[in-house]
């Protein structure tokens, strides 16, 4: 129930127009229209929000201001020492990050006979994977093909994806679904076993597989269960604050920090997999985020300082439909599946202003235009928003559809007194995904020998925009891939003497570039503590 009279006035317009709106099939924008829209309204194009990196492998390239401060930041090791000759942990494969990519990698490395260690700064499974709602793509229906999947993803990503990585993503997608099924993940299926699939923004075939709207949670809890069944050691509440190399410049471990006691420890490994996820909690441009508490770009910082190149670090994904009201869930994800199953985007006057299944960047820019230039937004305490007309879903597909297909969304709003079966919901773009990240080759290795990366920390798989359902897919495909490759490589690695000399090299670069601020990185966690009355 909405209490604000202006909101209610607008809802009545939405209700009055609903029947007519439902019959609409708004045309898709042309390539030119999309390009103009993005240039004018997408946050990636706000030049004043980006700066050029002054040091490191991507020197001279633009990144978000908040990220630059961390990439150029001061090491948390500054002034501290650890004894590299006495490792606290040793393993063949060290995996940093306990989300979907890290766990997939751990399972495959274990399968390949390697000793594996997983470290995570929160608990294993506390990750963006857990929060993915809508689904996972795979071209496994007769009217579909991996080539069609490639075309959708390549075009949706503005033809910038690294082709060999995208090739791997789409051709290994059906096998990823099969692997998950064999682990016991419960996908939505018809009684004859046919996968129930829907569209996502920018897909040309219905290839979105789902587990209600808990798709990521269902995948994550199953992967976590499998990691524990295999007895793979997991060290919770422990972050990695620097990578360690050996005398030959190859990655050979990490300096770990107990998040509570701040105790430092050394983990030595033959190969290392970074699976640290994204950066939503850096709140680029002041946007709210749909991301997990730990999404602070740590992996980018660690690897960049050690000499790894980034690809497309200037491109972020703003999910078009973040919750805009009430304040308690501001920025929380409203899954794209709400639109896949029939809800349309409607402005304050009850008008449908776009096809609801444009790609995410285009949809987000279109909503921003509606709320700014066109002045058709609904006023909320946090700004302006548009309606996502959820009652349409049951008007189209019958009563009970919402509870069956998007129960998490129903619950999330019901907790705040809004029944999405009867009332529309207010949405506005929220910072959702890091399109860019570490550059890898098809075997999962970064520029640094024996340092692999998988999941959101990687850049280039999706180009400059990612389609719904391709991230759950990439953490599985590239997580497994990294686990296999890193464990295979570990069989032949002889680790030399451990060193942190790359930190002094980086410090020299900082000094030469005149960077003298004391910002420490990686950030590890966001700081939401109220600043008022706070002592130093």
């Amino acid at each position, binding site marked *: 129930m909405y209490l604000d009279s202006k909101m209610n006035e607008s809802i009545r317009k939405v209700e009055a127009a609903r029947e007519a709106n439902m019959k609409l099939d708004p045309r898709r924008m042309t390539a030119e229209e999309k390009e103009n829209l993005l240039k004018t309204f997408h946050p990636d194009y706000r030049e004043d929000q980006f700066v050029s990196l002054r040091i490191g492998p991507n020197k001279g390239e633009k990144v978000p201001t908040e990220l630059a401060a961390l990439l150029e930041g001061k090491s948390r090791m500054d002034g501290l020492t650890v004894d590299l000759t006495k490792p606290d942990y040793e393993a063949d494969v060290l995996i940093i990050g306990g989300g979907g990519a890290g766990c997939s990698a751990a399972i495959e490395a274990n399968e390949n006979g390697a000793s594996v260690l997983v470290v995570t700064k929160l608990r294993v499974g506390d990750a963006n994977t857990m929060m993915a709602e809508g689904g996972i793509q795979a071209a*496994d229906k007769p009217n579909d093909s991996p080539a069609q999947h490639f075309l959708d993803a390549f075009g949706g990503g503005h033809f910038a994806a690294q082709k060999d990585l995208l090739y791997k993503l789409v051709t290994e997608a059906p096998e990823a679904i099969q692997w998950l099924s064999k682990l016991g993940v419960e996908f939505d299926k018809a009684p004859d076993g046919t996968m129930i699939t829907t569209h996502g923004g920018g897909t040309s075939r219905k290839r979105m597989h789902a587990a209600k709207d808990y798709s990521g949670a269902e995948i994550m809890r199953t992967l976590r269960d499998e990691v524990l069944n295999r007895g793979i050691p997991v060290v919770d509440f422990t972050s990695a604050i620097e990578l360690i190399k050996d005398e030959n410049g190859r990655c050979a471990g990490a300096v770990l920090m107990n998040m509570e006691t701040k105790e430092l420890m050394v983990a030595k490994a033959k190969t290392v997999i970074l699976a640290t996820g994204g950066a939503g909690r850096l709140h680029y441009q002041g946007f709210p985020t749909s991301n997990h508490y730990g999404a602070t770009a740590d992996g980018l910082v660690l690897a960049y300082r050690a000499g790894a190149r980034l690809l497309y670090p200037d491109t972020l994904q703003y999910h078009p439909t973040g919750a805009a009201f009430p304040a308690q869930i501001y920025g929380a994800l409203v899954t794209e599946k709400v639109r896949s199953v029939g809800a349309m985007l409607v402005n304050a006057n009850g008008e449908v202003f776009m096809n609801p299944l444009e790609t995410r960047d285009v949809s987000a820019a279109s909503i921003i235009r509606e709320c700014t230039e066109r002045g058709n937004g609904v006023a909320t305490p946090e700004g302006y928003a548009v309606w996502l007309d959820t009652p349409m879903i049951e008007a189209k597909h019958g009563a009970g559809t919402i509870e069956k297909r998007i129960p998490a969304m129903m619950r999330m709003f019901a907790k705040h007194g809004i029944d999405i079966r009867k009332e529309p919901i207010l949405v506005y773009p929220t910072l959702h995904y890091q399109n860019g990240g570490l550059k890898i080759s098809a075997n999962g290795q970064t520029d640094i020998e024996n340092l692999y990366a998988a999941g959101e920390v990687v850049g280039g798989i999706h180009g400059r925009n990612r389609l719904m359902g391709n991230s759950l897919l990439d953490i599985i495909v590239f997580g497994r891939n990294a686990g296999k490759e890193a464990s295979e490589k570990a069989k032949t690695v002889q680790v030399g003497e451990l060193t942190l000399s790359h930190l002094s090299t980086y410090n020299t670069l900082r000094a030469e570039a005149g960077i003298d601020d004391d910002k420490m990185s990686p950030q590890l966690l966001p700081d939401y503590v109220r600043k008022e009355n706070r002592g130093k």
Partner: protein
Amino acid sequence: MVHVYLFGKKYAVPASLTIMEAMEYSGYQLVRGCGCRNGFCGACATVYRIAGDRELKACLACSTKVEDNMYVATLPFFPLVKEVYNIEEVKPTQQIMMQLYPEIYSCVGCNACTKACTQGLNTMQYIAYAQRGEYAKCAEASFDCVMCGVCSSRCPAGISHPQVAMLARRLNGKYLAPHCDHLDERVQEILDGKYEKLIEDLMGKPIEEIKELYNTRDIEK
């Protein structure tokens, strides 16, 4: 503003805040007991009591609003019993549950688990399904579980309900749910190299041609 007691200390916080936001508002930097901040990960299980009320309640701190005179204590997590098994070797029979989680048969039917569930699930009912080996029903009834463990903290029989349900769901997903044939066929086709040429031809085209293909592709209704 309302008054809340966080870990025993009294603070005044805006009434619109969640418990989690109230902690941050009051100066606590969360290191544990904070995850997705939106009700999906179960990391922020919290116990509280309202002054004058005898009942100790439990909730997720991220999705529960503060109330006046609320006494709050968080736990980093509720430690659950997780039995280890090989998913390839177990069978979806009643026996496996008896073997791994025999305590479910000690359920006294108090229903405290259901009352405590932060997701509003019928927890006692899904345990009853598990007792009978009805894993498909157990999987469906427990599907929305975020594994916060509040139910288990209330159980006089020592049942780790979320882990019981996890086993049931994996058994259902792997062995009982209808098998998907078109998935197996597609995986085999890819292994046989059926799509290699198609996709390599596409990748090899000049960018303008790929753009044209993308912009004019037909979209399934």
